């Protein structure tokens, strides 16, 4: 297991970005860039990360970034990879697409699906703050049930797309889930992804202080609750083999899991969540872990 001292000391984000105080995406990006290193090209669709990257003339990272329209992240990465192959540089440079949940599960799903189906050698990282935060908190296909957004004032009805499963169904060599609150696990997953050829997908839950309604100082703790309640299991699927990550392993035991209400009640977006919806969450978590247990047993 990687330790804090194993991470490169070098920072690839220059301080003084436009990200909100306590933004977990900023932490995710900072850790990911440490894992990816300087031989990396990033492509980013319209998102909070566009904002972090800065405005005209001046940017905030020590790696190059290509901004691209909302629907095109997967295609943009494909284009960079194709050009690097054309130039014979494909083995020297990591191509990484970094998109928010809207740019991944909604408007970006088609070009992402196409890019992985073609076997493009790249990493697609989704930082999932569970709504269109950059445009002012509108619901997305990744917003969980019962959550307030400006377009679901009474809480979202419907489901949260399970994007990691959708990508797994593409049969790609690497799929992982991660979260900002476990940065060492996150770092290791990017390192693992870099070492594998072909399409890699990492879905990272990214707590958002203004969008979820909590104090910025609690960004790490909120994310930890998502893992500790069993809502957000951390795992990898490497060449089809399911591996439950160390930080999630003990939560296979339902008794070790914290009540989901600890997670929900800590966020203002779930202020008006009903008992029925809480029950839905409990059922969802139970079913999710039953499936995980089965997968582990079968392997």
């Amino acid at each position, binding site marked *: 297991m990687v330790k804090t001292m194993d991470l490169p000391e070098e920072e690839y984000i220059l*301080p003084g970005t436009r990200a909100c105080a306590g933004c977990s995406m*900023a932490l995710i990006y900072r850790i990911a860039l440490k894992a990816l290193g300087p031989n990396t090209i990033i492509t980013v669709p319209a998102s909070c990360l566009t904002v972090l990257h800065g405005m005209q003339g001046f940017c905030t990272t020590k790696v190059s970034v290509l901004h691209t329209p909302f629907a095109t992240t997967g295609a943009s990465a494909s284009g960079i990879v194709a050009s690097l192959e054309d130039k014979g540089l494909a083995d020297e440079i990591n191509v990484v697409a970094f998109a928010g949940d809207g740019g991944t599960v909604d408007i970006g799903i088609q070009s992402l699906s196409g890019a992985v189906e073609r076997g493009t050698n790249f990493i697609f990282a989704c930082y999932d703050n569970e709504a269109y935060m950059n445009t002012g908190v509108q619901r997305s296909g990744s917003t969980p049930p019962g959550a307030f957004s400006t377009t679901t004032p009474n809480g979202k009805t419907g489901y949260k797309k399970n994007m990691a499963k959708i990508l797994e169904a593409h049969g790609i060599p690497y799929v992982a889930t991660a979260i900002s609150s476990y940065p060492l696990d996150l770092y290791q997953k990017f390192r693992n992804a870099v070492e594998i050829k072909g399409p890699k997908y990492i879905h990272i839950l990214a707590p958002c202080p203004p969008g979820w309604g909590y104090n910025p100082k609690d960004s790490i703790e909120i994310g930890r609750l998502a893992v500790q309640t069993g809502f957000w299991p951390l795992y990898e699927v490497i060449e089809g083999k399911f591996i439950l990550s160390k930080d999630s392993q003990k939560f296979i035991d339902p008794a070790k899991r914290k009540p989901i209400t600890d997670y929900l009640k800590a966020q203002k977006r779930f202020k008006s969540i009903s008992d029925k919806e809480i029950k839905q969450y409990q059922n969802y978590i139970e079913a999710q872990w039953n499936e995980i247990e089965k997968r582990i047993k079968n392997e």
Partner: protein
Amino acid sequence: MVDAKKDFQKILGSVQKPVKGEAGKTGTWSSKKPIIDLEKCIPVKSGKPSCFNCWLYCPEAVVTRTIPPKIDLEYCKGCGICQMECPVKAISMEEVKIE
């Protein structure tokens, strides 16, 4: 400076170069800043590179992984994550004026 009228041929795609403080001195966003009590700080006490949770969890890359850890208050947005993640409660959020 580019004279747009004469040198428009130099204005092609919009390109950025890296700078520190792209959004300005983000330290001014908050008056509360993390102050480390070095008597409690684990790496300072042990003299060995250890813990560094403040460095690890900082979303802004304003903490150094040094003994003692240093925080760049000119750019620290004062989110308070380091205070929460310090296992020995060595960090307190205090009023610091940033100009």
